[in-house]
């Protein structure tokens, strides 16, 4: 039960709010890291077990590494450009953030399109029953889906930052939002690179079939 009259809003200074929000968002990113770690664990677990020899049967073609690394390259460029803008904001150059975050948005959008398009070029035959025919293809579909979700969220965040920067919502003392968005960008790029490394260097299982 609480009383609700004669109150006014107390606002904390930007540095206090920024410090608080950095910790909160870092914890949320940590939860997302735990989720992606579970997906990566699943990939390696099934690869090591190679149940019934069905990790990567002969009729399944692995996902092409070139497209994955193109997506990763675009994301890394986007991350660097965005981080540059956030850094420029902290040193007082607010206008830089507008166009860097816009470029980063375009990079994320391009990566999203390529990631979506990758689903179409996966050569994962299905048996007549409608199931994917290997643990590898299942893992790749899940990882690509997680990547796509990350990138779409990044498009929303980056475009929002660009729009707010254009409207003059950010200045040097209140630069914590772009800084937090940089954390997200770094994590998205890192997770994409991790998936790229897995699907480039850890495709075939070194273990014989288990039951």
């Amino acid at each position, binding site marked *: *039960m*609480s009383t609700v009259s004669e109150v006014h809003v107390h606002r904390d200074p930007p540095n206090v709010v920024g410090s608080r929000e950095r910790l909160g968002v870092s*914890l949320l990113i940590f939860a997302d890291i735990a989720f992606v770690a579970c997906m990566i664990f699943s990939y390696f677990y099934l690869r090591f077990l190679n*149940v019934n020899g069905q990790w990567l049967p002969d009729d399944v073609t692995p996902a092409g590494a070139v497209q994955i690394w193109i997506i990763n390259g675009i994301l890394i460029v986007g991350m660097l450009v965005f981080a540059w803008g956030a850094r420029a904001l902290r040193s007082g150059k607010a206008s830089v953030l507008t166009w860097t975050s816009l470029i980063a948005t375009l990079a994320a959008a391009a990566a999203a399109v390529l990631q979506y398009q990758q689903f179409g070029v996966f050569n994962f035959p299905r048996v007549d029953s409608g199931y994917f025919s290997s643990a590898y293809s299942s893992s790749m579909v899940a990882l690509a889906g997680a990547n796509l979700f990350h990138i779409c969220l990044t498009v929303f965040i980056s475009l929002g930052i660009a*729009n707010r920067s254009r409207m003059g919502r950010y200045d040097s003392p209140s630069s914590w939002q772009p800084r937090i968005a940089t954390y997200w960008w770094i994590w998205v790029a890192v997770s994409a690179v991790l998936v790229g490394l897995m699907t480039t260097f850890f495709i075939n299982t070194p273990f014989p079939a288990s039951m």
Partner: protein
Amino acid sequence: MAIATHEVSAAPGSRRAGGVLLRKMSVVTAIACGLILMFAAHYWAVNFFVMPELPEGQDAPSALVYLLENRVTLTTMAGWVVGFMLGIGAFNGPVRWFFGKDLSDADLLYQAGKDQGVWRYFRFTTDHKVVGIQYLVITMSLLGCGGTIAMLIRTNLMTPSSSFLGPTAYNTFVGMHGIIMIVATIIMVTGPFGNFILPIMIGARDMAFPRLNALSFWLIASVVPVLLSTPFLGGMPTGWVAYNPLADQAPPGMDAFVMTIIVFAISSAVAGANITTTAVKMRTRGMTWTRTPIFVYGVVASVGLAIPAFPAFMASQVLSGLDRAAGTTFYNPAEGGSGWLYANLFWIMGHPEVYVILIPAVAALLELTPVFCRRPLFSFKAAVVAIAGIVGLSVLVWAHHMYMSGWAPSLGGSFMLTTELISIPTGLLFLVFIGTMWRGRIWTRLPMMAVYAMLWNFVIGGITGVYLSDIPADSAMHGSMFVTAHFHYTLMGAALTGTIGAVIYWFPKMTGRMFDEKIGAWGFWLIQIGFNVTFIGMFTVGFAGQPRRVFNYSEAFAVGNFVSTMGAYTIGIGALIFLGVVIASWRRGIVATANPWGAKTLEWQVPTPVPLENFDVLPVVTSDPYGYGKSDARPPDSPSDRPREGVGV
């Protein structure tokens, strides 16, 4: 806790109120939007996920029909959840942020529930006290629902060959009872008290992220109807653990479970980040870590543990949903999947989850024990170390749930060791309780009864847990009613009893009324007696070999099961009395003073009812929260709201 005061910068002038849409949204629009999007999603899914053209005369493969059915079901459920959240106003903040139209002061106050009366409980209200009450009500509703299902299960088990429930309904009810109770017990302390009490206790005006606070609650509210739809969608035959590949083959009721867990895990992550940030960053001036109440440690440990653990639960269900609806084969051994993958993901969450439930409930009792013993908390640092030890070890014990599954037998010894080690910090907590009570002049009120009951129950739950952590003993008793009795002694006997104590203790602050302890004690003790009768009966039949999750059983177990059912009915009667007292006291109880227990923590130093922003000026803490000396060894004879020594809010 002695406190002084200091001013903080006051608010800038309010901007013009905007947010017309914001003011129209409530649970009514949430249900309307939820239904609209649910039917739209269903219509779209039925027309989009269609059977491919097959050669004439060929029947559609049953597995493909099954996949399409699950796609439609999951899409429909997602439509409901998204629509509900849209209608309650959860997306207002992100959309307005995106367009650079931040909320004005008037909007913020409106969102905090200013001058909205009871209706604020049915909106996307950000005031932490409103969210706390919302959590309390939904927790009690879920416990009531899960408890009713338990009565149905026990009625079926009253006689060996009963057909009170059909086998399918029985299996579904066992699974639903499990997951409803797990969800309810996970939120039962961190939800109501972590939201209502914790910010005041640390001298904050609100949570760090008020909108995320409301989001975490309404996500749970949105998914409760989805979970309750399970029996109408063919049920779930798997129990609450939803083991695969059995779950892969289950009817669409399983989709409700999958959707519930995904949404619940998101809610838990959001709440965890919010509560942790609040406790770490918003403690008032002078509240060092050694002056921070033990309840704060308990809640932070719980939600901090949930942040890495629950994504594993979510991942297990995302993969299950993909298997069911997208045709992946994570858990299908014929196509390279593995049931052990599911078991690992599930139990990596599953065992920390026990401590996510237990730690805050025990911490709540640790919080109130010094108040009723008028003695400082014995070895505060030992209590903190014990909580940290339990948290640390709890992530290293998950495979003791899989001893008999055949997974990694060579690791059994190490998991046995880590599991048995966890009894050391747990024992330390017992020591803190007993040390605090030792030679204290105990004020025997109902919250203190909860401490006694918890200690009794937790000793039994803990010691039987040591048996089960031992591989040779577990090989005989796993999958039996003995296991069921053990974890009920832990989760219900310790955690739920702790929560009941917390409800009675903080009831005056949360509702402005005193809890009727005379009649409430009848309900409380009936629950405790019924609980022990139920589960000691279950220990005996389990020890004799009765497996759990069975619809009918051998005549040899008839007496023990009959006794258990009688005990369960006693719990039911006690719970109804307790619930009645809660409602009656809330409506017509004696008006509570600000500090009826004479406690020293900050939540008792603010007026009752608590003002919207808790403190007009923020307090400064100058001493520890358990400084009960000999001068005030006896509690006040009558409730008093006079300030304690050194207090000056």
